[in-house]
């Protein structure tokens, strides 16, 4: 099968097995291994990407269903010598240990900050009019991203730091 994807601003036509997931396409066909496979079942969040601006688990997306879609991966967020505010904050706060879930955490947090700024409520929000970026809000909204090294408190400190740097 052939599918056309725009990834990090570049258009790619990929030929692939009908069973191929976006995750494997991104990692193996497009040579962007920053997106990680932790479970291949949508349970860990390590494969989080932005699909047309929304965060999704790329392991749960079949490539064939995304012709013409726009994708951002961790490589599109920043490179080692040009890190985003969130990436810098993860380094400064030690919001990681082994680093394997980190691209997913950062992709998820990138989208989450936008969701909060747009007023999207979460399960722990007091009402439907949105909420401030409290620790409880971050914990709730980031719970789709597991970190077995358990850097959770530091990940949330990093997200808060980055959000403050941007406002």
């Amino acid at each position: 099968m052939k599918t056309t994807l725009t990834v990090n601003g570049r258009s790619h036509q990929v030929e692939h097995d009908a069973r191929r997931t976006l995750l494997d396409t991104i990692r193996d066909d497009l040579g962007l291994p920053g997106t990680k496979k932790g479970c291949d079942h949508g349970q860990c969040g390590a494969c989080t990407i932005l699909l047309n601006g929304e965060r999704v688990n790329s392991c749960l997306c079949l490539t064939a269903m995304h012709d013409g879609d726009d994708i951002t991966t961790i490589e599109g967020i920043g490179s080692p010598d040009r890190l985003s505010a969130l990436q810098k904050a993860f380094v400064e706060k030690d919001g990681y240990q082994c680093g394997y879930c980190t691209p997913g955490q950062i992709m998820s947090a990138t989208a989450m900050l936008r969701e909060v700024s747009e007023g999207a409520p979460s399960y722990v929000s007091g009402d439907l009019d949105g909420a401030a970026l409290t620790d409880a809000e971050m914990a709730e909204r980031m719970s789709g991203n597991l970190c077995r090294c358990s850097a959770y408190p530091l990940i949330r400190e990093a997200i808060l730091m980055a959000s403050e740097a941007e406002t």
Partner: protein
Amino acid sequence: MKDHFTMDEPQPRVLDETKQGVIGTPMDRPDGARKVSGTAGYAADHKVEGMAHGVLVRATISRGRVTDIGRASVMDLDGVIEVVTDPRMTRNPAQGMAGEAPVQPGDDVHYHGQPIAVVVAETFEAARDAAQRLVVTYRKEDAASDPDATPDTEVGDPETAGDFDAAWAKADVRLDRTYTTPSQVSAAMEPHAAIAEWTDGRVELRSSLQMVRFNKAELADTLGIDADRVRILSPFVGGGFGSKLGLGPEAVAAAIASEKLGRPVRVVMSRQNVFDAVLRRSETRQRVRLGASKDGQLLALSHDDRVSNLDGEGFAEPVSQASQFLYRADGLSFTQTVARIAATPAGSVRAPGEAVGMVALEAAMDELADELGVDPVELRLNNLPDTHPMDGRAFSTRRLADCLQDGAARFGWADRWTRGTRREGDWLIGMGVASAARSNMLVKSAARVRLQGDRAVVETDMTDIGTGTYAILSQIAGEMLGLSPDRVDVRLGDSDLPGASGSGGSFGASSAGSATFLAAKRIRRDIARKLGCPEDALTLQNGRARGDNREADLSELIDQELVGEAEIEAGKTDESHFSAGFGAHFAEVAVNEWTGEVRVRRMLAVMSMGRILNEKTARSQALGGMIWGIGTALTEEVQSDARDGHVVTRDLANYHVPSHADVPGDMQVVFLEERDDWANPIQTKGIGELGISGAGAAVINAISHATGHRTYDCPALPDRVISSLAP
């Protein structure tokens, strides 16, 4: 030439005298930018030309023999290259530091989930499809898979000091309790992965491994080739926690398939494979008996346990390890029973022994304090031994009392209310404490340091599994050579480099760090000679050497590369002194009176664990351990089918590692200053495992304080908490 050093006597505190001033600082990790940008290369990330994809096939019986692998059932599928079986394939990962092949079962099946073949195809999808469709024929045999019911047990000899029975008989208060903890798994976020490629009879393996020096020997022995024909690369490891100590079956399968097919092969375990075929932590059944006098002196302490493993595995979870040195008593006794079952074998998972053993011991101490009517902190303070209770060795350094007292003050322990009396709406509130303890080790390690002008390179096969090795080795070499750590490159995880301890048992930083220290020290000698001053007069700082009124920039003084290589191993101090990290965990929880849900509201750990090399990465290690404690207390449980031993909870939706929402923001860590001169020449102790040791018990004790009732089975799931409340 390699300097060899044996730890035979206490060592001077050189790192307190050097002038660069980077030891202990909360420096960012040098590998950080790569990790946050997705450019750190983990095992499966590498793209190798012509690579084929392998998927492991698991046995679906718990004991017996494969009579036909069913190759014909899949060979017609598009893209399938081969179904590879081989007598050299391994049934499970090697145990930590084995250095030899794991059991190679041939056609025999020893447990449900055992890898029995690898299907190799042109694409991952084709290999996965074929592995699932493969029609395997077995001859089944009966085997016991229930650890509680199997008749096949090995009862160890009791380890004793004093006369337990006599001390027990004399006690005014006797507590006899049984606690259970379930099987647990490491569940590192990176599934086990390997890419193997053969060139001119030599195999290069990229795999996610914690102990490259041992893994190299394991692969050579498994394949039946000389070790010099094996190279292993493991520069980034996506979490280990014990699960990647030993060479795994995916690596062996990749190496064999690649050899047979004459092309590179990648084998990545599915998450389900990881649950099935990677060593788990044994479930435990623990009986703790504490006998005390009315005034709160422990007289008798016994901690007996029952764990399980598969035949042929020498490992048994050392459940009572900390119970043997934490408290004093007139009579102590420890007996272990190992049940043999046909099920996924058991091995090391973060802090083997202490992680689960201290849950029982520290819960029992809490209960004893309640029975005696004394404060749980006081009970612990009143029963600290003068020397190791089992063998009489002196403690090297132990600030457990300071940790308990400092932690109590910081946590507001004095304001603790009567058990079961604080309520906020539907929530019952409680505070708990537990001691933390984890024995400290030094494992043979080598490292090489190269100094080129005012830049240095550290080379060792040591790994960084998230622990911060890249950071701390650059700090140690930088400190010793008077260089900013950003002028030190650290090369790790390559078996062609000097062999280190690897990452395990919290001994990595001390062992590989000491080797790096000694290698750099060797170079200091050469610098002093070049400068023309005695070594003890030499000061190195910011790329400048000073001594005896002479001064020079290293960039000018060092006109050709200086190389220092050193190896360290444990020696006589280990016989004379017992070294362990100590600390105190405090937790506050809220328990929902109607649902039994437990929320951790805050935790504090105060720890004394030798010299801190990097305050930032040390804190992360400690926090990680504490959160594993939350998992132990509240969420984590492998459930297996007692009939055939197959793992039921074989993914991350069914095995619950703590998530963001399980962990409060208020997680505090305090390090008390300490130098362990008897441990190693950099005065450090292990950190990563101390954080978990006792942490779960603090949460369990807080639940009991909140509700006024005890739970004896971990994790304290809502149904267990609710039933503990029933009259």
